[in-house]
């Protein structure tokens, strides 16, 4: 264990954020003997705060300074991002599929988007290790689309009536399904409780069955001596006179006091919008367009997954309140990027039979926003027993013009410019999600639904903005997240993704962070 001195004394590592990537980095670096400080801008959350309620659960969503949103399709920042201990990963649905090998070679294979500076095989070991540490429930053999890797350490989640009803629609259309890989315990795992299948995942899982940062990596980090400081908002990365070496960070405490923390290694693991915002705000006379931005690509290639949800009413009772919020079954038959109708392009998957609650943005009532009065009352009474749903994750192509910048006019209470986001989905991504919508409705009709409808197109997850690559002229970091310009300034998290794939990003965030931490320990840049 390394005893940590208070701010002002140089540390080995200062990490900005406390979410998925931050907690993995903190655990691995602290366990290797490094002194680690995590600075979290939000308040402290504990498992005891995870109240089972869609209303109370909103406190884990972003509640900090606004992000100014432009472009045709919002990235739904406040919905997708979190704040406080554990960051966005505290309200994740824990759907943890792997990226496919083809997701790493998009530009080479299809002439669009970007390539990753690493291949699937470079990440495979880390996927395997993380899945063993975290515990993933699933059935690797049944996922015939799954890239090579170790089988899951736990058997799959149970399939409840909702899942069985929808699955028969897939079967009748000759589409395949498998259990959904979930970072949720289907049995007691490494001392953590088994899931009770009550559908409160995104309100925060207080029993440790869902692998959020409070359940796995933050306790490990703290056990190894890492210190987590809350209400500590990083406003600047500090550099030497050349802007080629990071010296630490400047942060503001809740009482308004500004502090400097020196460290050999600075890890930005906030989120894909706050990381570039900090780098832009850290610009100096020598780096007027922002730190680590000699490529001019800082903030570029922001991505999200376009998604639609399919809903249906069935004669049978669906018991849609049972099960994980992320779903029970998976279908990746639509993952081949270039085998779609018209100009649709990319990969997509279905997360099938998601547990439903009556209220909130994705709840039963808002699935039919046009109903009100007695028609809504009648619908709710029927749907509570007979509704079923599933949702897509469709690939959003990386486009340079989708970007994060900072406002020239608006600042937060600390004088830091607000982030400005411009984002629109590519036409081929919108065509892909339309194809998925039609398929989803066909599946539900084949399953015997008496009524079928779909949501509009929404944005799920946020990625890119500080993309990794081989060329310092075309990317912000190398494959380990080290910025090309400043080797001891590392970025972690989904902001590194050069492509989004058609899967949820959290497993890949963990695997990348593990790979980076392992490398940095062997090649310490401090």
């Amino acid at each position: 264990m390394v005893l940590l001195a208070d701010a002002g004394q140089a540390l080995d590592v200062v990490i900005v954020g406390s979410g998925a990537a931050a907690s993995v980095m903190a655990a691995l670096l602290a366990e290797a003997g490094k002194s680690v400080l995590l600075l979290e801008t939000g308040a402290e959350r504990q498992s005891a705060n995870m109240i089972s309620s869609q209303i109370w659960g909103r406190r884990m969503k972003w509640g900090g300074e606004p992000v100014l949103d432009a472009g045709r399709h919002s990235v739904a920042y406040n919905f997708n991002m979190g704040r406080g201990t554990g960051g966005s990963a505290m309200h994740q649905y824990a759907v943890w599929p792997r990226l496919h090998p083809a997701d790493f070679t998009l530009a080479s294979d299809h002439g669009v988007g970007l390539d990753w500076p690493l291949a699937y095989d470079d990440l495979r070991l880390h996927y395997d290790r993380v899945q063993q540490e975290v515990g993933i429930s699933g059935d690797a053999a049944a996922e015939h689309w799954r890239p090579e890797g170790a089988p899951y350490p736990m058997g799959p989640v149970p399939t409840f009536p909702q899942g069985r009803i929808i699955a028969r629609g897939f079967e009748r259309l000759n589409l395949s399904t498998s259990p959904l890989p979930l970072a949720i315990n289907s049995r007691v795992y490494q001392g953590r409780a088994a899931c009770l299948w009550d559908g409160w995942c995104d309100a925060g899982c207080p029993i440790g069955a869902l692998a959020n940062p409070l359940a796995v990596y933050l306790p490990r980090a703290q056990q190894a001596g890492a210190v987590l400081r809350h209400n500590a908002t990083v406003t600047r990365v500090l550099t030497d006179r050349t802007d080629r070496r990071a010296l630490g960070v400047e942060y503001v405490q809740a009482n308004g006091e500004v502090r400097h923390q020196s460290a050999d290694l600075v890890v930005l693991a906030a989120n894909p919008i706050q990381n570039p915002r900090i780098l832009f705000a850290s610009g100096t006379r020598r780096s007027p367009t922002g730190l680590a931005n000699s490529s001019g690509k800082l903030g570029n290639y922001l991505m999200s997954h376009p998604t639609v949800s399919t809903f249906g009413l069935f004669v049978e009772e669906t018991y849609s309140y049972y099960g994980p919020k992320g779903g029970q079954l998976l279908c990746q038959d639509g993952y081949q990027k270039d085998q779609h109708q018209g100009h649709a392009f990319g990969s997509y998957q279905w997360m099938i039979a998601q547990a439903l609650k009556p209220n909130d943005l994705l709840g039963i009532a808002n699935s039919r926003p046009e109903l009100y009065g007695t028609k809504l009352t009648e619908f709710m009474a029927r749907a509570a027993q007979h509704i079923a749903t599933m949702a897509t994750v469709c690939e959003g192509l990386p486009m340079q013009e989708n970007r994060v910048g900072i406002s020239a006019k608006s600042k937060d209470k600390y004088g830091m410019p607000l982030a400005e986001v411009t984002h629109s989905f590519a036409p081929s991504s919108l065509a892909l999600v339309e194809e998925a919508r039609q398929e989803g409705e066909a599946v539900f009709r084949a399953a015997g639904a008496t009524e079928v409808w779909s949501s509009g197109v929404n944005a799920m997850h946020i990625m890119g903005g500080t993309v990794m690559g081989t060329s310092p002229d075309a990317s912000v970091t190398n494959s380990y997240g080290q910025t090309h310009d400043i080797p001891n300034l590392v970025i972690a998290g989904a902001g590194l993704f050069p492509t989004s794939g058609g899967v949820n990003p959290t497993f890949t965030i963990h695997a990348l962070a593990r790979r980076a931490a392992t490398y940095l320990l062997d090649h310490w840049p401090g």
Partner: protein
Amino acid sequence: MMTNPSRRRFIAAGGVGLLSFVVGDSCLRISPAEARYKKLPLGNLNATQASALERLGDALVPGAADSGLVYFLDQQLSTSTEDCMLMIRYLGVAPPYKDFYIQSLAALETACLRRYQKDSAQLSASQVAQLIDALLSGSLLDWQQSLPAAFFAFVLRSDASDVVYGTEAGFDRLGIPYMAHIPPPAPW
């Protein structure tokens, strides 16, 4: 509309659990439904705004008035952005959220006066239904707000759904189990 509920009844209807209401020098921990029954003073909304919210909210989601929609909103508009439990916090509206509600309600009253020559609290049931149809379809011509009328209706309908359906009592009315790991502060 429920007018004189027994204590047992308003707790059952009381969707959104115990909230703190400051009355004089006292801080009461009661449900929004109970606050409505006690006619506690509001901190952010005036009587006209409260009447409009209650009328429209109950027409959108029957039961919202008795479940204390107005008190839920009024109390939440006093919280910090970080602690706010209204759905609007993740709908891309810049805080303070009070401005959104107050300005939207003002736009609603202006539109009502022009369309019906009376304020929203005086509308008949059929006029309220007409008004909601116009809000949802975006055909309310006199809506003078940067955010669309349909968005305001969506937000208010979601708030009303929270207090009617998003609670242990609401789940119970729908016949589905709540299954809390950690129940909301009673009677959530």
